[in-house]
């Protein structure tokens, strides 16, 4: 617990009758690169929203660097060092890439010139330098994902919550993006990513949590988690694990 | 102050006005529910319909109630054309643009009326304008009773169209799931225009019921816009039942407000309701939470 940058305890949230998140507890170690996986509708994005303050939990607490931030407004959490990206990218369409990233930079920098310079530096890091003066609306999906990442990075976060930053990318784009994420983590930023792209999870994450139907059903290293029966069943249906083993032993025989 | 003899007629009057308000609000609800447009031109359109009824009576001698089919069809055509030709093009995918477009249309309508009809207030005289009927201690003007009944009948017809006809089903499909409706072969643009047309047609009916007991000048639209929106947000955006009940409620509030605070200050009651609902309970009584 001493190394936990983010610690959530007993977090729950319902919408009407739907229990989106049920009694989830986890702690993210500072400096780690970890992943949150689970089938669609498991509540992963809801969990991110609860952590970052976009939603208030029904019960439970969120602690960041030891401080209770449960239910605090997102902008205050960003100032503390927790920034999130969105599954469906939200660029400031009317503005250029540089101006977009500068908004993030302004969190720590008052002066416009300095913020724009910082934006340029961040754009370089994520590979957006050639696009700096293009309007955000001109970017491809991959470009917008990078922009989303860059803007969040510009806030100099301690914890970066990446929501499916690889979704919608083709294999080449994924291969280009993965080192970027690795590089961010290597520079000292704690990263927690929601991801469906398993190759990224296996290659990047040190620790994985699995969410299904709002509940935490497994956690561990990527290898442990992917061989866990409960995880297989969550993705592929009840009884699948046993069937797969039977089929495997049948083939081997 | 709370003398039944004064309250009762006031409430009854409020109900009769409320029925017509409900009809106006129903049109607005349909337009919002289907097209998700806040039709700023609703009040001005009503004003145009009122002038139509007026001129049909003054120039052609047609009684307002007999003019119903003409005005309703005319307003329907106007609505269909407006949506198809103007509003459809203004969207560009942003709600604000449509808002501005309907505002522009409202401004043009109001001021064209000012230009051509001048600012005098006009009303019509019919054989029954001044006759009243006694209900308990209240003397209710016959036109108001007819308005009440008529508004309810037209509302009923609207409910029937929405619930029992193919058009109504298509409209409901489009309002719930536009893309899916397209895949089913529904001509969405046509449905949009039909909905807008029906919305304005309701205004046509409302005008026929309204004019015998009321008046018209180029500015009346403005007053009706906010009343109509108050009803729609009170009832809940997109809820027909809400618009109906909301209409009656607002009619009564206006009547009582006018009774206790005077004509102009009484209007503030309606605005207060509007601001209050929008701030504190935006889904109104029956609307879905946004």
């Amino acid at each position: 617990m001493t190394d936990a940058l983010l610690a959530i305890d007993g977090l729950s949230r319902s919408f009407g009758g739907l229990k989106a998140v049920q009694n989830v507890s986890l702690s993210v170690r500072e400096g780690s690169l970890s992943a949150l996986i689970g089938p669609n509708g498991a509540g992963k994005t809801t969990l991110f929203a609860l952590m970052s303050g976009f939603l208030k939990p029904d019960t439970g607490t969120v602690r960041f660097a030891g401080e209770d931030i449960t239910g605090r407004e997102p902008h205050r959490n960003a100032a503390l060092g927790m920034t999130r990206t969105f599954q469906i990218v939200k660029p400031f369409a009317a503005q250029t890439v540089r101006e977009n990233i500068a908004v993030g930079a302004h969190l720590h920098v008052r002066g416009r010139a300095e913020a724009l310079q910082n934006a340029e530096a961040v754009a370089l890091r994520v590979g957006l330098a050639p696009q700096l003066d293009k309007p955000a609306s001109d970017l491809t999906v991959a470009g917008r994902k990078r922009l989303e990442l860059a803007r969040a990075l510009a806030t100099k976060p301690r914890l970066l919550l990446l929501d499916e930053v690889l979704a919608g990318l083709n294999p080449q784009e994924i291969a280009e993006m993965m080192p970027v994420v690795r590089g961010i983590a290597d520079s000292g930023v704690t990263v927690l990513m929601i991801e469906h792209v398993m190759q990224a999870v296996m290659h990047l994450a040190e620790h994985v949590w699995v969410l299904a139907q709002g509940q935490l059903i497994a956690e561990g290293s990527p290898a442990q988690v992917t061989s866990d029966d409960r995880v297989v069943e969550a993705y592929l249906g009840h009884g699948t694990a046993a069937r797969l083993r039977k089929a495997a032993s049948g083939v081997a025989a | 102050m709370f003398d039944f003899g004064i309250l009762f007629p006031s409430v009854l009057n409020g109900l009769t006005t409320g029925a017509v308000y409900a009809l106006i609000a129903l049109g607005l609800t349909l337009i919002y529910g289907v097209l998700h447009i806040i039709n700023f031109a609703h009040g001005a359109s009503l004003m145009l319909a009122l002038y139509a009824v007026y001129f049909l009576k003054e120039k052609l001698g047609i009684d307002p109630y007999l003019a119903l089919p003409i005005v309703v069809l005319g307003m329907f055509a106007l609505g269909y054309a407006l949506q198809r030709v103007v509003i459809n093009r203004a969207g560009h995918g942003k709600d604000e643009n449509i808002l501005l477009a309907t505002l522009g249309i409202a401004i043009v309508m109001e001021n064209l009326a000012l230009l051509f009809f001048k600012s005098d207030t006009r009303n019509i005289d019919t054989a029954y304008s001044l006759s009243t009927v006694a209900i308990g201690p209240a003397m209710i003007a016959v036109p108001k009773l007819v308005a009440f009944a008529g508004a309810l009948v037209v509302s009923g017809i609207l409910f029937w169209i929405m619930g029992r006809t193919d058009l109504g089903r298509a409209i409901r499909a489009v309002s719930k799931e536009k893309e899916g409706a397209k895949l089913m072969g529904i001509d969405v643009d046509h449905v949009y225009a039909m909905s807008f047309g029906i919305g304005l047609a309701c205004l046509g009916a409302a005008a026929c019921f309204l004019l015998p007991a009321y008046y018209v000048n180029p500015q009346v639209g403005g007053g009706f816009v906010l009343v109509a929106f108050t009803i729609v947000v009170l009832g809940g955006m997109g809820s027909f039942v809400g618009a109906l009940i909301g209409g009656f409620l607002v009619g009564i509030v206006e009547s009582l407000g006018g009774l206790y605070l005077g004509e102009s200050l009484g209007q503030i009651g309606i605005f207060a309701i509007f601001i209050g609902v929008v701030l504190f309970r935006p889904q109104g009584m029956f609307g879905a939470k946004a």
Partner: protein
Amino acid sequence: MKGSTKQLAGIALFAVLVACVPFVTKSGVTLNFVMMALYATLIAQAWNILGGFGGQFSFGHALFFGTGAYIQAIAQLQGGINAWVALPLAIVGAALVGLFMGALTFRYGLKGSYFALVTLAFAEVFRILALSVDFTGGGVGLMVPLRESVGNLQFSSRAGYLWVVLAMVVAALLVTWWLRNGRFGAYLQAVRDNEDAARAVGVNPFRVKLGAIGLSAAFMGAAGAFYVQVFQYIDAGIAYGPAVSIEALVAAIVGGMGTMWGPVLGAVVLHLLSDLTRNLFGELPGINMVIYGTVLVLIVIFVPRGIAGIGLSVRQLWKPKGGRHD
């Protein structure tokens, strides 16, 4: 020269050129035209701050105009306060009303059409109240007596008024410049373009919108006070009626929302148009507004980014295209 410095130079040039107009011509008609065009610009600029940069469309901006106007009149008539002293009072008063409105509406997350309607409702409420209350002159309105002297903010020639409103317009231009080139403006436009994304990177949307409405209201209040000084009269219809609200927003939109010179362009074009109409058709009631409404609809359909927007698009056509790969 950096882009932002070029903009400042542009503002300075504009200020000097327009200030020189009274030295170039003594024609009352011309001076009046320029003065009224500047006044139209001022209200458009005010609307632009909240609507163009902030993305919050107000349909009842007259609320702030009328408040400024009434404070200017009442301070002089009932408070015996000098017109020049009343002016900052009017501006602050209008700004306070703006902050109040903002606090109420933004706290509850009002946006888009709901916000537009509520602003309209507020303006109407104030109009009805102003009609019914004595200290606003009720239905008769208030008259500020004619006492021409610079000390009274009343001038015998339009030139004096022209310089006063020019100063206000330049102030608004400088504020707009600041919005384009500073952190607050970046935050405001971020909230406009995507509020959630802005929140995620540390922007407090409530505070930012509040600042915008306060500034916007302040300039409307200044315009209201100016109106009282020029026309020496104010009543509920002029103060809180829809005309001012509509003129402000149409000019800003036609000219180009969220740009620095858009409101200037839009106001001048519309003013020219209405002058032309008056010369061609005489004083027909409502003809002005028919034109404004038609122009609004046409612009929304065909050129939603306004005249300044056309300029921006043209400039992009001329720029060499950057690399097409990502």
